[in-house]
């Protein structure tokens, strides 16, 4: 047996929550003291324990009421499964929002830097593909011969500054 204050303390709830549960008929104490105070018995505590679990699952108070009174196992499970599918939908929607943000951040980063790769990454890429220093020089020369302006634009896209681009292009002629 417990008073409202003791029960509230045990379950980490406020007194007003328990009063509210009583007012909507979700959890009514089995007994009253002679002076009219609420007295919660073991079965009330068991009921409150179930209420708290369902609350943790995010179920609404009206759903919880229905679950506690439900005599048909089919409807009982249907209510829980409905909550589960609602949660899955919410998670899906959150995930989509997350992906949109990641996409926006990536686009913004790209357009801010305006480049696919940087110089170091490109050099490393050519090196691991099998080109040595002389090979890279041949690459610049070939590029310059094919199209100086494309060579220029490409170096620019790697983030090289104008001075360095001019130097490279001069040495590639």
């Amino acid at each position, binding site marked *: 047996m417990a008073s409202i204050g003791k029960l509230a303390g045990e379950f980490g709830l406020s007194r007003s929550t328990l009063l509210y549960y009583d007012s909507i008929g979700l959890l009514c104490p089995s007994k009253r003291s002679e002076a009219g105070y609420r007295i919660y018995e073991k079965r009330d505590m068991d009921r409150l324990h179930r209420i708290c679990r369902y609350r943790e699952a995010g179920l609404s108070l009206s759903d919880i009421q229905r679950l506690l009174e439900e005599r048909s196992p089919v409807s009982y499970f249907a209510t829980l499964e409905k909550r589960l599918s609602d949660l899955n939908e919410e998670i899906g929607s959150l995930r989509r929002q997350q992906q949109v943000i990641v996409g926006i951040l*990536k686009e913004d980063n790209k357009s801010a830097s305006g480049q*696919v790769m940087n110089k170091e990454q490109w050099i*490393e*890429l050519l090196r691991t*593909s099998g*080109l040595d220093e002389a*090979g890279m020089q*041949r690459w610049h020369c070939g590029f310059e011969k094919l199209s100086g302006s494309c060579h220029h634009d*490409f170096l620019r896209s790697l983030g090289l500054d104008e001075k360095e681009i001019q130097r490279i292009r001069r040495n590639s002629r």
Partner: protein
Amino acid sequence: MLNKEQWKTLLKKTGLDTEGLNRFHREFEKLSGEDHQEFLELLGIDAEEIGRIRDSSK
């Protein structure tokens, strides 16, 4: 931007043989699949072929 054939010719002339070009794609894919995709798009390669190139670069 150069087109696909020009790039291929350029890299070949530079000294990369077929295996070197394959390595180039593999390394590019490893570095960043997304950048690889963007690069191939810039060369004007269609989506289907890009998919094929990237798949064989994994």
